[in-house]
């Protein structure tokens, strides 16, 4: 990756080191083997989700993207809930179904095309309106769009992205540390099995 902050660092290279145990390898393999097509969402919802994720976490074109939509679809298929939720929002599956349908309906109402067909500036404008709580299409079904944006959409997209080894390598994150953790704990020190930063970056 050009201009990478941690050049040459690939968290997956730790696979056969003491940093990973069998359980770690199994979990990561599962995550990397997710199918790239919807298994819970329908085709329209999937396209909307892919378009939304691309606006929230734009990805560089020179590497395979983190399959955010596939990861969220898997979470929905397994109905893996967080264990907590804002009571004003419906449960996981219902919130996503309704939210994606509503964003698509908003786009169709304004531009007469589905969400994934409008250009990125228009998508941004719609998402900003959702974040600001300014969308009121009947498709929202009483669900507050601002809440959905902050507590469902952002949460799931960002956690999916940063739950993927590609993102770990990008930000120099050590990834799983079991059984081996870290020894050199002081500021500005690193263990040999940690990512090497290219050069000090300002700010």
């Amino acid at each position: 990756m050009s201009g990478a902050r941690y050049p040459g660092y690939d968290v997956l290279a730790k696979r056969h080191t003491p940093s990973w145990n069998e359980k770690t390898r199994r979990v990561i393999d599962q995550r990397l083997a997710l199918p790239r097509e919807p298994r819970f969402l329908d085709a329209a919802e999937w396209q909307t989700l892919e378009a939304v994720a691309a606006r929230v976490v734009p990805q560089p074109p020179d590497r395979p993207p983190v399959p955010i939509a596939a990861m969220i679809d898997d979470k929905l298929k397994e109905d893996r809930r967080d264990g907590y939720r804002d009571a004003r929002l419906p449960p996981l599956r219902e919130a996503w179904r309704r939210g994606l349908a509503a964003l698509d309906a908003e786009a169709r109402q304004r531009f007469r095309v589905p969400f994934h067909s409008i250009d990125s500036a228009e998508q941004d404008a719609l998402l900003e309106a959702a974040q600001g709580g300014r969308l009121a299409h009947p498709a929202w079904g009483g669900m507050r769009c601002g809440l959905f944006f902050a507590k469902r959409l952002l949460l799931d997209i960002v956690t999916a992205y940063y739950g993927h080894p590609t993102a770990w390598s990008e930000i120099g994150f050590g990834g799983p540390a079991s059984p081996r953790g870290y020894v050199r704990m002081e500021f500005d020190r690193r263990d040999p099995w940690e990512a090497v930063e290219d050069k000090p970056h300002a700010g």
Partner: protein
Amino acid sequence: MMRRLPLLAIAGMVGLGAFAAARMRRPQRIARRPQPRAKRFGPVALSATVARDVDRSAALLALLALADSGLEHYRGSFHNRVMYVPLGVAATTMVACLRDAASGSRRTQRSAAVPGLAITTGIVGTGFHIYNIAKRPGGISWLNLFYAAPLGAPAALSLAGLLDGTARLLRRDRHAFAGAPLARLLAGIVAAGLVGSSAEAGLLHFRGAYHNPAMVIPVIVPPAAAFLLARAAMCRRGRHAPARWMLLSLAAIGLAGTGFHAYGVQRNMGGWRNLSQNLLNGPPLPAPPAFTALAIAGLAALRLIETGA
């Protein structure tokens, strides 16, 4: 099976310690005997055998300092170039002491440079470690005493140097240094070393919350041995069985301690297979045998005291 291994290791080390200690006692037993062997083991021959044991003790201490500083300074990524120095000095001291111990000759041509270097490095190293503790946020605090550079560690190199210096004097048939009898001087060095090492073990075992009852042993036995040795040095001639037994036990305890520490490494997540973390993060393997090294020197001092040499 894995759970039994450490116990086997401990048992093996205790046996080894007892064997080594039994071997060490032999010349002393002979020296106490009257004619005709006394001719072969007169005061001169005695100081040569004692010097050999003191050299061995110094060599072991230097080896431990080499292993400990190597491991811990590697952990510190040799952040400061000076951190290489104790490795070189400890290796030099160890080789010099081993050569002296092996040569068997009473006199050494070697200058005082090596022991002087070791003593100085230990003192300067202590200064560096105090600086390392003090510069951290919180300065001199329990947290930094626990986790920053260990305060007492560099002193092991000074101890090795002091013992090496004493062995040199013994080989030259000197019986006093600066007005003090060598036997008392040696006993004093050993007693001080034991109290210091014990304090270090006490601090770090306190950090470990004494989770294993055996962790109190190196806090209790070394000061007791130091006390008995110091008392023997004040009384001079005659047998000092309690001091001898305490020092013999201490020699075994030092070796057993490494077994315990090896078990401690195994108890960490991933055990020995995760040694790139656990060897650094677990209890230090080279620490406990310092008691064995000091016990060897203490027994040598006791032999000098008992024969009135």
